Each structure stands twice: as C-alpha cells, then as structure tokens.
C-alpha cells in the first residue's frame, strides 16, 4: 500500500509539471508595443577609437554585484554593462527596448510580457534566452548569495517569471501598478545560467574576482588589483546597430584609475592623465578650475542644466511641538527665512531655491507651487495676529510666557554658515533659531525618534513622488517612520491612499498635483536649495554632441549606461599636446547648456 501511495504522489507530480508547461501559452489578446521610433541622443559626427581615463576613489572590494561588500560605487560600472529588458529614454522618459524588442501588458495590471531579441549574446558568445531570466529568479532567491534584500525582493515583490518558448517571457509582480512603473519595479536583468550552473555555499568567495559574462557594450578586460580596472569595447557587440546605440560607446578603452584623494586626482587631470573632471563642488569650480590651462583653452568648462527628480531638501517642522503646531507660526517662519540671501552670498550663487517637496518629476510635480518668499512684513503681521505681538527685551516674541525660540538640528558642520545667516534675519521677525549641530548618525537618530523641533535634511529621490511615507498619518506620532513632520490630516490621507491605489497615469498626475498643493498649504516643509545642473571640465580632445548630456544626465562624463555619447578626437589630442609644449593658445571655453533648465519662478 505504502508503495502505491508514493507512486501516486510521483504520478501527480509528473502530471502537474506537464500541466504547468502546457499552461504557458501566451494570451491571445496582447497588443505588443516597441517604440522603435524613439529619437537618438548621440551625434552622427562621433568617431570610434581612443581611450577614456577616469578615476575611482577606492578599488572595489569585490566584482560581485550582490552579496557582501558589493554595494560599492564601482557596482554601477558593472551594472551599466548588464542590459535589462527595457530602459527609459533619458530625454523623453518613454520606454525603449534593450534586450526585449517588444512588450505587452496583461489584463491583471501586474504582468508584463516581453519578446527577447534572438540576436542577444553574452560576452562569451552564448545566446541570451528566456532561461537566463528564469534563472535570475532562482539566483536572487538563493540563500547562498548572502543578500537578504534581494532574496526578499525577488520572492515577495516579483512573484513569478514564466517562459513561452526560448524568446518570450512574462513577469508578474505583487500589486498592480501604472504601466511604466511595472517596468521600473518589476523589470529583470538576465543572469548567465550557462556560466554559473549551480549556486552553492561557496558562491560568495568563488565569484569575488570572476568576470561575469555581460550583454552591454563593454566588458572588463584587465584588472590590476588596487591600481586600475580597464573596460574594453566589444568589437562585435550584438546591439551596436540599434538606432539608439549608433554613434554611442565610441572609445575603445575605458580606464578607471584608483586615486584615493580628489585633490590629487585633480592634479592628474591637470597633467592630462585624466580626460575629465566633475566640478560640481563650489570650492573646486571657483578656486581650482582656473588659470592658464583654462585661459589657453586646453581645458573646457561645461555647465549642463539637467531636469531630474531633486532631493527634497529643507527644513522639516515637527507639528507635535507646542509652538510649531500652530500653522501661522509655521507660515511666518517660512517668510522669515532669507534663503535667497544665503544663495547670493555664501553659496556664491551656485545653488537655486527649491520650490516644493517634489520637483523634477515631470508632470507629477506641481509647477504652480513656489516656496514662500522672504517677507518680514508678512511674517511680522502673521505673528502679530496669531497672538505673538509681545516682544521680549532681546526682540524675541513671547506669548503666554513662552518665547518664540526654536531649535534647528542639522548634521553637517559645513552648513553652519548658511543657517547662521538665516538666524540673523529670522530674529527680525522675533523668531529665535538655535543652531544644533549633531554628528550625522545622531542627527538621523534624533529625527527618527521625532525629537526635533526643526530638522534640516534632504530625502533622496525616487522614480515617482512618494507621499505615503512622508505625509500619511499612519506614519505620524511614532518613531522610525519617515513622516518627520508628524503631519496628520484626514483629507491628505484620503488623497494619498487614492494616489497609491490609482493605476491610471493621468489620474495619478492629478492626485500628485493636488497633494503637492495640500502639503504646501500645510506649511510643514520649508524648501531650501537644489543644484539644478552638473558641471565639469575636460580636455579639448573630448568631443560632444550639440547637447552634451540628456535631460536626466547626472554627469556628462559617463562612458556607459545612457551616456557614452562623447568621443575622443585623436588628431586634436596630438595637436593639443604639442600646443601645450609651445604655448599655442586656443580660445577659452566656458559653456552653459540650459535647454533642459526648469523654469524658475522668479
């Protein structure tokens, strides 16, 4: 009897497998999209050849992209050469093909179907197939890779990957989302199954320094441990002839030197050993990037305005505080802070005033909102009317024996100057601001415990505006959540819930705009600054298209990813080197590109 039972179980198992494989037939009603007409952003003038040298501050602790120590900045260089299914156009943010040539959406709102390019090849020549995507799921779920975040994400967020023949797959996520967000949150990168074969407990150690086959334009060709890493362009890259890839990825070699100090790296740049140098920091831009090399035109300076989501930086007012719970005080405080003066003085005009909590999210940002302007008359009037008309001997307002004195916690000592300038003008409105510098970890702790009155900080950006974590009452009045203003408003809650549940993009945009207005009206956040550009200098032999970057470029000197649009002009290189020797002069170049500049409200 026992034997028969087992037999039955085996039979059932076999049956279920065959049923499952039979079930993998594509739904008939799919409408496939491809966006093959997307506009390229490279220049037809580009020529191939030469090498591009850049620097990294530390040698990566491993070449793995998951597992212990893999979260170093070097990972982005490897990931940029590992193509996904689709990508976002860096200017229009439309979906553009990568390994997938076409895609379609399932009825359930959480499934995307992809047709893979049959010509896609790994760097070792093997074809990229549906199995490599299925394997990604096995790989990322494996305990042996020692990466809990990935284990969790690929188990709970991505619920299944199915194969429909060698070159068609579908991915299903946990919840329904708007279409473009499905690609963003549920998109996959293939993992070379033929290369790994089996993941065992030695995986972390074994693959520390292995070069993994990739699908992108470059592959690591040489590693000199602790010194440099060289990437070489694939001579027969399978996707080289795609319209969007033409005239990109022009240099033959990308060399990343390890230089452990930015000042020393700058010296290397001046000697011509590095081709470019990012100069976003004001002290570099104003104090270092000048002199003969620039005056003679050997080095060219570019400032490029981009337009991507901006960090939500500013002052967060804790509404649980007995003074700040009064909205008129919050509004008056916003009017009493002279951010423009800070920009014009200590920030050397390099920054711009941030206008709202979410900016740079395209139509998801409400462009009608602007930050409350410095206006002492308004501030004083509001406070007078709110019952704070009495002033103490030091000019600070008093109401019911309480002084209008507030503590600002901040985490970087470089910011003391900015805040002490704001402090001086705020006193004119009768508001005393005490500066409380903390080291960054206890600053974070104070804020997470919601023990601050005013906190200065900036949140990192996301793909879409995030409201729930910052403004929903579910996250208010308790520690370790991101609602650090303790905003607690039923109407806002309702809209946030609607925004989260909505899968129609247009309606979401509307909700996001309405929410932005409500948040502005609640006056719990005083926006501070943004850096609306990237800037740097490069040797004149580095040539760029008319637009040297894209709307979302965070740097102009990225050789991979959606970059790689510059090229090295070898003739100019020889010429420039000769010119330096005999002091021939070129006209100096300091260009500003503002085609993507956001409208500033003033």
């Amino acid at each position, binding site marked *: 009897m026992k034997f028969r039972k087992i037999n039955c179980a085996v039979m059932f198992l076999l049956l279920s497998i065959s049923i499952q494989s039979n079930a993998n037939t594509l739904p008939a009603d799919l409408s496939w999209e491809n966006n093959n007409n997307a506009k390229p952003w490279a220049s037809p003038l580009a020529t191939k050849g030469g090498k591009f040298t850049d620097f990294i501050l530390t040698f990566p602790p491993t070449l793995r992209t998951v597992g212990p120590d893999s979260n170093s900045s070097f990972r982005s260089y490897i990931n940029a050469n590992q193509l996904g299914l689709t990508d976002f156009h860096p200017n229009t943010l439309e979906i553009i093909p990568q390994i997938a040539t076409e895609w379609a959406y399932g009825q359930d709102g959480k499934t995307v179907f992809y047709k893979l390019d049959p010509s896609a090849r790994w760097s070792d020549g093997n074809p990229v197939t549906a199995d490599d995507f299925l394997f990604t799921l096995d790989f990322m779920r494996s305990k042996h890779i020692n990466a809990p975040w990935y284990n969790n994400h690929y188990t709970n967020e991505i619920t299944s990957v199915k194969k429909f023949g060698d070159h068609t797959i579908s991915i299903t996520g946990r919840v329904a989302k708007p279409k473009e967000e499905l690609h963003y949150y549920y998109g996959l990168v293939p993992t070379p199954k033929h290369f790994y074969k089996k993941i065992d407990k030695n995986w972390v150690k074994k693959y520390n320094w292995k070069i993994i086959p990739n699908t992108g334009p470059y592959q690591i060709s040489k590693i000199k441990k602790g010194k440099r890493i060289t990437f070489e362009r694939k001579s027969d890259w399978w996707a080289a002839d795609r319209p969007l890839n033409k005239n990109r990825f022009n240099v033959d070699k990308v060399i990343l030197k390890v230089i452990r100090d930015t000042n020393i790296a700058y010296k290397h740049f001046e000697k011509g050993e590095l081709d470019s140098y990012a100069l976003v920091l004001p*002290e570099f831009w104003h*104090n270092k990037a000048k002199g003969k090399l620039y005056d003679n035109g050997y080095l060219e300076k570019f400032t490029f305005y981009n337009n991507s989501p901006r960090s939500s930086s500013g002052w967060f007012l804790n509404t649980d505080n007995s003074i700040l719970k009064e909205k008129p005080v919050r509004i008056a405080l916003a009017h009493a802070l002279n951010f423009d*003066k800070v920009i*014009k*003085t*200590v920030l*050397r*005009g390099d920054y711009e005033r941030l206008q709202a909590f979410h900016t740079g999210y395209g139509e998801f940002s409400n462009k009608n909102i602007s930050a409350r302007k410095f206006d*002492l008359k308004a501030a*004083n009037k509001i406070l007078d009317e709110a019952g704070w008309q009495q*002033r103490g*001997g*030091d*000019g600070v307002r008093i109401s019911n024996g309480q002084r209008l004195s507030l503590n600002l916690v901040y985490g970087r*000592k470089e910011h*003391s*100057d900015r*805040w*002490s*300038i704001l*402090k*001086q003008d705020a*006193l*004119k*409105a*009768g508001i005393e601001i*005490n*500066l*409380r*510098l*903390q*080291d960054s*970890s*206890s600053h974070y702790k104070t804020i997470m415990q919601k023990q601050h009155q005013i906190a200065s900080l900036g949140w990192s950006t996301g793909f879409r505006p995030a409201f729930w974590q910052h403004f929903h009452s579910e996250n208010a009045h308790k520690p370790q959540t991101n609602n650090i203003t303790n905003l607690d408003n039923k109407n806002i809650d309702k809209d946030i819930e609607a925004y989260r549940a909505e899968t129609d993009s247009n309606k979401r945009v509307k909700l996001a705009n309405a929410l932005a207005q409500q948040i502005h009206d609640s006056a719990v956040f005083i926006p501070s600054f943004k850096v609306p550009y990237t800037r740097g200098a490069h040797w004149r032999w580095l040539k760029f298209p008319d637009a040297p970057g894209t709307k979302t470029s965070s740097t102009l000197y990225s050789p991979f990813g959606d970059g790689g649009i510059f090229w090295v002009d070898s003739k100019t290189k020889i010429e420039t080197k000769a010119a330096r020797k005999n002091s021939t002069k070129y006209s100096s170049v300091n260009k500003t590109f503002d085609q993507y500049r956001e409208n500033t409200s003033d």
Partner: protein
Amino acid sequence: MLTPQAKKRWIKFKALKRGYYSFILITVLIFLSLFAELIASNRPVVIHYNGELHFPTYGDILPGTSFGYDYQWEVNYKDLQKQFNLEDKGNWLIMPVIPFNPLESDFIEGEYPPYAPSIESKHYLGTDMAGRDITSRLIYGFRIAILFSLFLLAVTYIIGVFIGALMGYLGGTFDLVFQRLIEVLSNIPILYVIMIVASIVTPDFWTLVLLLAAFSWMGLTWYMRTETYRENSREYVMAARAIGASHSRIIFKHILPNSVSILVTFFPFSVVSGITSLTSLDYLGFGLPAPTPSWGELLQQGTANLEYQWIAISAVAALSFVLTLVTFIGEAIREAFDPKKYSYYE
C-alpha cells in the same frame, strides 16, 4: 599680609621681566575683553537722538520704531548713522572701534565672502566664510576661551585639591580606592567622551566646563596627595594635632598653605590646556554650538580654505600669541617658586 616667603617669590617673579610683562599684558587683555561690547559691537557706545542720550551697548534692543522707522526689530545702527549724517539735525552716534558684532554677517554687494582685510570696510582682519568680522570674533572668542579655561581651572582645582588632600591625609583604604579610581578615569580618552556626549546633546558653556572638569581633575590629585603625605609627617602638623586641631583645620590652615606653591606652578599650564581643549573641540565641531565666536571654529575655516590666508593667519597668530604669553608666565612662576633656591628645610 604676604608671608615673607611669598613676598620673596613675588619679587623674584617681578624680576623675571618676560613673565612679568606677559602677566600684565594678559591681565589687561582679560580685563578689556570683559568689556568687549564697547570695543566690537554693532551697537553704538552712545547715541544722541532728539536731545536724549542713549547707551544701547548693554540691555534690551532698541527697536526701529524708537528712531522713527516702521519696524519692530533692532534698529540698524549703520543706517541710522548714515541718516544722522544726512539729516544734520544735531543727532549723532559713536560706534565702537570695530563696528561689528561677532555674529553679524556683513555682505558687500556683488562680492562673495570671505572679504580680505581692509581699512575702508572696517574689517581690519577681513571676514570669515560667512562674512563675519574676524577681529570681532577673535575678541569674543578670546573672552570665551579664557573664561572657559579659568572656570575649568577653578572646578578642577577644587575637586583635585580636595580629593588629593584627603587621599594624602586619610591614607589607607580611602587612598587606595581613589588611586585605582583615578587610574581608571585617567585612561578614558577625554576627547572621545566629549565627542560622544556632544553627539547626543549640544553642549553649552557650562556643560562643557563640567564635562571637561569631570575628566581632568585627576592629574592634580597625585601632586596634592604626595604633598599632603609629606606635610602630614612634619612636626608642625603633629604639633597642631597635639593641641587638638580638627582635621579640617589641619588640612586647610596648615597643610594647604604649605603646598600652595605646587598648585600655583601648575596654574598657567592648566590655562593653556583649557584653551587648547576648547579650541580643538571647536575645531572638530564638538565644542560650543555655532555661531558662537570661537578660535577653533575660525581655525577650522582657515584650514579648510587655505586660499583665503587671512583667516588661518589671524587664528593661528592669536592662538600662538596668547599661548606664548601664558607659557612665559608659567615659566616665570616656576622659576620664582623653585624650591632649590627659596624653600627652607629644617
């Protein structure tokens, strides 16, 4: 009033010119710094307005409304001065030598701070990165630093002398327990402890004094202890004990006055270490909260922005000048109190 021995030491100290003049100079500087508001401030020393005299230096702010402006906040005295000159109605005001307070950012239209030293702009040593007058910040920074180290010294001496004297006088278990305790305490790195505390609460002047004192009273106990041990076995102490003097009388009336020389010689060096502690804490950003005027903070700005040399030069020059003066005094005191020449043994 002075014992003959003390008198001799004083005469000897006065004869050591370098130390003596340093002593006079620093006393004058401390005295002047107590009235820094009359030397460097945005408030005038005296205002003559519509027949009345005002002395706004100390006390409450004078709002703009009291001089015919329409605003409630403190009147801008520089504007007021310009207006007085323009109107020529017999109103006048006298600004201090340095017409800037240490917290005030003074910006020049169209130029970015820091501004180089200039007599015309009255920034005699230039401004720092936030456009604040360096001279003014040095003066107030000096006052804070010197008062800080004097208070610190007072607290550490009171604790150190008291416990040291008790250890030496009582001996036995008390001595043993405190010796071990002090050994443990001395091995705690003070600067790190303060950094940890400063990361939790922003320290103010007094908490910083107490915090530093809590970890720096130990050094003195060793000297006080040996001194007390030695004096305790002297015949005059035995005599005092024989006629029934109380413990406190013996310690304070007999032993302490006789061990005072050791305390006095350490005095200047404690001042130096007090100033350096505060400066280094401020330099690292763990000292007094911004925007308190401070030499350490100025030094930090200077080293971070070496291309604006006047910041670092001012801070380094001021710091070395004061520390040198105090060291000269210390040297002279040590020589004046040198037992090889002036102590008498029976």
